[in-house]
């Protein structure tokens, strides 16, 4: 039994290290993008269009992962694309967590009409197809980074609200919040000081998962061409451009796709790893 537990713990550790490692590389790449990139993200050279990556015959030295149809360096654009992806992940993820968790806490702990209203809103939101809803919102808000972030918050707050509401409800039914109130705390202060810390691990896990989702939503919106302006490098935009020339130059689509895949996988595995780490049974 003990042996099995330590084995599970080792597996969780490995998962956290691998996914955390990739995310750290991304953060560093995004922060130091101008230093790391061999070229400028918008630098074009029409004579160097669709150059293959370095190990393929005919590659142009200095363009390690090849160039796209306009002769822009794929590696550089992937590095700069990390900036957009991470900004969306961090900002959209955090605001979504804040809004959703607040509403979830209020609904789950205060109950009553607050719960009725918020739960009804969640029901209505769940009846929308999310991708269609986000495309619709971008059409309303206009393209741009801010619009993407708003769209993600508006659509995904229910992910937090649903789970946090259930958790807050379970915590609220225990004895300790009641004792806190007898000791003289108000309901709101009990909610923040007593309930919130116990729900926080769940919120952190959800936040990590949400960051991965935000990256995907950004990619989907770039793909449908509703994201930020097409000049700025985004992974989704690169994949979308690369798809049109996939038979002539596979690398334009494949490298951003691999990056996106690893990033989404890492966010999700990091979240799952954290969940297991927070799990008191395994600890």
């Amino acid at each position, binding site marked *: 039994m003990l042996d099995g537990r330590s084995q599970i713990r080792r597996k969780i550790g490995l998962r956290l290290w691998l996914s955390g490692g990739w995310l750290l590389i991304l953060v560093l790449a995004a922060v130091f993008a101008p230093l790391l990139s061999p070229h400028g993200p918008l630098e074009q050279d029409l004579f160097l269009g669709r150059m293959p990556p370095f190990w393929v015959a005919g590659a142009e030295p200095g363009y390690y992962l090849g160039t796209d149809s306009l002769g822009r360096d794929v590696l550089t654009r992937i590095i700069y694309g990390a900036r957009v992806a991470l900004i969306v992940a961090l900002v959209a993820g955090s605001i979504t967590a804040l809004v959703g968790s607040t509403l979830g806490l209020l609904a789950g702990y205060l109950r009553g009409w607050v719960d009725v209203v918020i739960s009804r*809103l969640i*029901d209505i939101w769940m009846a*929308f*197809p999310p*991708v269609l809803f986000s*495309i*619709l919102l971008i059409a309303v808000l206009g393209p741009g980074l801010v619009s993407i972030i708003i769209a993600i918050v508006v659509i995904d707050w229910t992910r937090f609200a649903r789970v946090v509401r259930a958790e807050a409800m379970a915590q609220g039914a225990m004895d300790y919040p009641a004792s806190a109130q007898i000791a003289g705390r108000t309901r709101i202060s009990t909610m923040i000081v007593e309930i919130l810390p116990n729900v926080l691990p769940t919120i952190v896990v959800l936040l990590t998962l949400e960051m991965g989702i935000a990256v995907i939503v950004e990619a989907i919106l770039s793909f449908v061409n509703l994201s930020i302006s097409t000049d700025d490098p985004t992974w989704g935009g690169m994949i979308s451009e690369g798809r049109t020339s996939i*038979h002539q130059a596979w690398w334009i689509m494949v490298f951003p796709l691999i990056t996106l*895949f690893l990033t989404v996988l890492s966010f*999700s595995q990091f979240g799952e790893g954290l969940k297991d780490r927070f799990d008191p049974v395994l600890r």
Partner: protein
Amino acid sequence: MQILRSLLFRLASTAVTLVGVAVIVFFVIRVVPGDPIAMMLPPGATDEDIARLTALYGLDKSIPEQFFIWAGGVLQGDFGTSITARRPVLDLVLGRLPATLELSIMALVIAVILGGVAALTGTRERGTKVEAGIDVANGMALSVPDFLWALILILLFGVAWPVFHISGRVTPSLDLPFVTNFYLFESLVRLRFDLWADIVSHMFMPALALAIPLAAIIGQLLKQSLKETMHLDYVTLARTKGYGENHVIIREALPNAILPTLTLVGVQFTFLIGGTVIIERLFSYEGLGNMAIDAVINRDLPLIQGIVILFAVLFTVVNLVVDLTYALLNPRLRNA
């Protein structure tokens, strides 16, 4: 009696949800910048023309007024006229619905088969490398959404090793004898297996992309429930009676373990239907989702409204059916 009352309650709350969806979508899309009327007219149209067309689509009235006119029409089955296609929205939407339904159901079937096989194999081979492998595959499949799986499948089986069609619903040069838009179903009924094979070859990649995450969820949860059931006394009894492992898992453990998975599949199926929007776009599959994105790009307000409402109805109906099935299948709820 109790069940009837809770059913009525469910229906009422479903109605409230649908009205909420209708109100939100109606007001959101009316804030969309871009004048659909200006896009319809050729350059050089007079102000009079513009005014006439605006009045024709009722866009000259106030937004609340427009809403009540539209809602009144919807209650009589009239969803308005598409601005780009200039045909009734209901006809357009119902014409595309079969394509999306067939795709979703095919994806569901694939997910159930993949997930079921994974769970049963994992249970049979529990504690071995095979189970560990299935766990890793499940974890990967679950972490990555359908959009990325679709891109990967396009690369693998559309480009690198082109064995499946990755664009459209059916080869355009084929002569289609169909009277309904349920191509997959109708080709079977007509025993046109040549057409059926062509349609399946078009549908398989998008359906698989939609199915992979759901298959992982099914695989994980069903395996978990099976594992718990395998420890129960009646399963041990079956084993002491001399039944083989396969019989014990499938005939004894499975019927008791399947209930939680069934509920989850229902909820997840609505997510899968929502996923068809972008997947249809990726595969140029002529379904509802693809039409929806075009409608947003063309600012076709009545069409957007119609599609979103139809999706919402689809979601709520699926949820309702799942709850009812659950109540019927779970003996503890049958008399409650």
